[in-house]
């Protein structure tokens, strides 16, 4: 029987099926990256440093303070957690990215089949919408400053004033319009803003240190312990320990490293060792910037709202920094969400899909809970997408060692890989059960979850390949009308 993979046949008719629609959107990245387009170290240093000094950093640092992290736990937890994140990029993501030279989309398509990939894309799009929503909330706290808007507080879950609703709508409308009009210009602005944003973080923190009683470098540590990271959580907030900090720092980008999303970036690396360059993002963004924003929140007497705390440290430039940080993070995220959602309604123009994504995002941004619970959301986001990274890892390295075939969905032209689907959903259910039964918090579920997903996929792949179980295949040439 001659079979025709719609993703491969150049003479295929216009996209009709789910698989064809998805492939058409990702057409540009179909081929492995050629040698001539590989990038040097400088590109990766800039990329990682820029990507991880973002709007989220204005919220995460203050939330550690609110959760009563002690100074020693914070510094040690961040040092080690970020190291584990760098090692995950270097030893898990980069080796597969530099061998396949494909992005996550095409690699996962081979392993999971196009229909399962569609489901993954939609989940990813919704997560992107919520992430962009939290960044719109962040920007709104700065835009509302000159209008005397009532700022959301740590315990706020719902919109706290009409002013908040208006400002969020305004920021959401601007971000959505710009995402529709000029994504590439925003991407350029993001690149330009990155070094400046990092310096604003540092400068703002340094400028408020005297108000906390730090007059010399030697004063810093005692003040850090007694007035910044005191070890006492805010009222009604659970306390974080060293382990919370370590696991959060390791897994806040879980979707990117062990979830394999950064294959999209690292496929351009000349060597797999470039994965270590993620250290520039981790230690500038997730160490220095988190510490800086924590200092700012202590100087602001515990206020969490990013706009006011940045203004306190850096004046108008600080408020502008919060707007730009939120905007440059929200914009590409919204664009990616729109791209993923376009697979549902392929006849819609890109602007219409981005508008829908913008509406979802802005509606989510109305709820300050999204920003105030950012640590939990980021952990959930990574956890939901991570099992597919484990599936790619197991498929690439472990299945061949067990005498099984790699990329079985592509080999058998399956639309839907049952082992990948069960590993994904099964892992999430198991993590949920682990949380419910043992009380293990969401920040710690990624590690057992990764092993669960890996083992499930290996076991189910073994059963599938030994029994020759098939699920529906791509349409065949003979089945065409």
């Amino acid at each position, binding site marked *: 029987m001659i079979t025709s993979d719609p993703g491969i046949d150049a003479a295929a008719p216009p996209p009709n099926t789910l698989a064809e629609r998805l492939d058409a959107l990702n057409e540009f990245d179909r081929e492995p990256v050629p040698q001539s387009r590989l990038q040097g170290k400088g590109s990766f240093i800039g990329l990682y440093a820029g990507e991880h000094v973002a709007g989220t950093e204005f919220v995460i640092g203050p939330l550690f303070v609110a959760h009563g992290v002690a100074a020693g736990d914070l510094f040690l937890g961040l040092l080690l957690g970020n190291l584990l994140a760098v090692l995950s990029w270097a030893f898990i993501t980069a080796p597969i990215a530099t061998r396949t030279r494909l992005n996550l989309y095409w690699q996962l398509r081979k392993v999971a089949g196009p229909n399962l990939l569609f489901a993954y894309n939609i989940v990813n799009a919704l997560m992107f919408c919520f992430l962009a929503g939290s960044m719109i909330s962040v920007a709104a706290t700065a835009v509302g400053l000159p209008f005397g808007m009532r700022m959301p507080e740590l315990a706020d879950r719902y919109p706290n004033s009409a002013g908040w609703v208006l400002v969020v709508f305004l920021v959401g409308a601007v971000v959505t319009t710009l995402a529709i009009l000029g994504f590439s210009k925003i991407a350029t602005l993001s690149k330009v803003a990155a070094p400046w944003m990092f310096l604003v973080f540092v400068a703002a923190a*340094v400028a408020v240190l005297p108000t906390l009683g730090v007059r010399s470098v030697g004063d810093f540590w005692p003040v850090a312990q007694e007035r910044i990271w005191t070890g006492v959580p805010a009222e009604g907030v659970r306390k974080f320990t060293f382990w919370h900090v370590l696991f959060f720092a390791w897994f806040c980008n879980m979707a990117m490293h062990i979830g394999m999303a950064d294959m999209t970036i690292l496929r*351009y690396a000349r060597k797999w060792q470039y994965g270590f360059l993620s250290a520039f993002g981790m230690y500038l963004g997730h160490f220095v910037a988190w510490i800086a924003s924590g200092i700012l929140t202590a100087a602001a007497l515990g206020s969490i709202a990013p706009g006011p705390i940045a203004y306190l440290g850096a004046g108008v430039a600080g408020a502008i920094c919060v707007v730009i940080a939120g905007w440059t993070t929200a914009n590409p995220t919204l664009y990616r969400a729109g791209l993923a959602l376009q697979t549902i309604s392929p006849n819609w123009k890109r602007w219409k899909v981005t508008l829908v994504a913008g509406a979802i995002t802005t509606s989510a941004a109305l709820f300050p809970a999204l920003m105030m619970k950012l640590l939990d959301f980021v952990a959930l986001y990574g956890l939901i997408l991570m099992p597919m990274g484990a599936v790619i890892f197991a498929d690439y390295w472990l299945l061949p060692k067990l005498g099984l075939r790699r990329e079985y969905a592509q080999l058998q032209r399956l639309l839907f890989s049952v082992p990948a689907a069960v590993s994904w959903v099964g892992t999430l259910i198991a993590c949920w059960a682990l949380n419910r039964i043992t009380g293990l918090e969401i920040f710690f579920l990624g590690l057992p979850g990764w092993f669960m997903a890996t083992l499930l996929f290996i076991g189910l792949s073994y059963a599938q390949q030994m029994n020759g179980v098939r699920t529906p295949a791509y349409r065949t040439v003979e089945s065409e009308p």
Partner: protein
Amino acid sequence: MRSWLKVISFVGLGLTVVPALLVFAGSIPWATHARLMMVGTVLWFATAPLWLGRTDGTH
């Protein structure tokens, strides 16, 4: 021309961060730091896009 643009950009970055160190050292008041930082911000965004955003955008 490009070199001059870069010099102005880096002066902008300098004005973003150095005044904060002077506040810490007690040499200037916070309000001066905030104003200088704003000047640095304007210099950076007026000049950096003319050279920094023009490199290869492979990613």
